[in-house]
């Protein structure tokens, strides 16, 4: 039976040690600086902005193939489709541009944000669907397809902008949402007993079987992504679900509160990075 095969991988999950000193109480900016420092010390030869390129910051052979993909990337189809969808008016004559600041152009760096009235984290993908909902349109699936294409176009118009996620320190609910996302990131789960950090912090740059692991730092810069494995463009939360499955944990629903808080934390860790999405990955 399929689920017994994974026994072989178990020793690795035990082997990856718990090596970090405790300090769960630090604020978001302290957390971010600690992660930047960790990577700067561990990979002194990798320029900071390079971490936005995931595993390609560490692996020369893979990087060459990636550069060839980026020369004429398959996500250009999604950008084009996304632009057409973005610009097509809803049945009521309004459009996505009416729902977002600056007509939705070049705004991705401000997402996710904490909505004080709703008391929840709002992601760009969630707001795309909220926009549809408020204009009487049907909701789109969150992981792939039209919504991912619209997100790709919006990311494309935001390229080069600096990620600027805010966790207002005078808003306890926002701080709590951030903390919950952080907790998720550090919590081991699933049959393999892995946390997000097991792969993407403690083992970043190393190989897990044949796969080179990408870094936490810069992880939120380049979404949505055309993964060769998927053969299509997908959102960050599709990847969250896939990561969960890879450690044999049942994924949560896309745009669940947990995933939104996780995206809030993870994107805050990429503050100061230039957006470079969409992107191709293996």
């Amino acid at each position, binding site marked *: 039976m399929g689920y017994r095969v994974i026994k072989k991988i178990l020793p690795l999950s035990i082997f990856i040690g718990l090596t970090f000193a405790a300090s769960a109480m630090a604020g978001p900016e302290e957390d971010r600086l600690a992660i930047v420092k960790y990577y700067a010390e561990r990979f002194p030869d990798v320029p900071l902005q390079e971490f936005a390129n995931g595993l390609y910051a560490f692996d020369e*052979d*893979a990087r*060459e*193939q*990636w550069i*060839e*993909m980026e020369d004429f990337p398959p996500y250009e189809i999604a950008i084009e489709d996304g632009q057409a969808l973005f610009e097509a008016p809803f049945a009521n004559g309004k459009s996505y541009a009416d729902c977002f600041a600056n007509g939705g152009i070049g705004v991705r760096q401000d997402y996710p944000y904490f909505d004080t009235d709703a008391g929840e984290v709002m992601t760009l993908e969630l707001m795309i669907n909220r926009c549809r909902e408020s204009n009487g349109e049907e909701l789109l699936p969150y992981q792939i397809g039209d919504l991912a294409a619209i997100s790709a176009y919006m990311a494309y118009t935001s390229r080069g902008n600096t990620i600027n996620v805010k966790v207002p320190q005078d808003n306890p609910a926002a701080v709590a949402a951030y903390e919950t996302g952080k907790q998720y990131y550090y919590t081991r789960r699933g049959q393999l007993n892995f946390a997000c950090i097991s792969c993407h912090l403690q083992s970043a740059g190393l190989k897990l*079987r*044949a*796969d080179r692991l990408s870094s936490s730092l810069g992880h939120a810069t380049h979404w949505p992504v055309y993964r*060769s*494995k998927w*053969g299509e463009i997908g959102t960050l939360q599709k990847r969250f679900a896939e990561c969960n499955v890879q450690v044999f944990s049942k994924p949560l629903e896309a745009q669940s509160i947990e995933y939104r808080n996780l995206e809030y934390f993870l994107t805050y860790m990429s503050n100061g990075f230039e957006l470079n999405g969409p992107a191709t990955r*293996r």
Partner: protein
Amino acid sequence: MNAHRRLVLKGMFALAAIAAWPRLLLAARPDSVFQETDADKVIADLFGQAPTDSDQVMMKIPDIAENGAVVPVTIKTDLENVESISIVVVNNPTPLAASFIMSPRSVPTVSVRIKMGESSQVVALVKAGGAVYSTTKEVKVTIGGCGG
């Protein structure tokens, strides 16, 4: 309205283009060779002669493919009077991946992204001046491109 009319116009142009297309060329695809499952037979059927190893056929392809579904390949040659450039993936179910027919105005270099089901030798074949030249590289694949 405007967008719609543009679309219709575009469609009309496309139809006109298809009608004017030179049909002759399309008949020349070696369909049966594309179905062939043995790499040696593919090469024999395609050229009717054995290729000569040549360092004038240059192939850029990764040693370790990131993902077998998308393996970038570039083939170049210094040879003159190039008639065709072909790619054979020995271990693929049907090894002939692509054949590019050159024109008198072609610069003999092509790039394409191919699928590889498993680790395999990849053979670049150039037919030039009536003879066939080749170069071969071993490519490791960790994620296969045929199943998933």
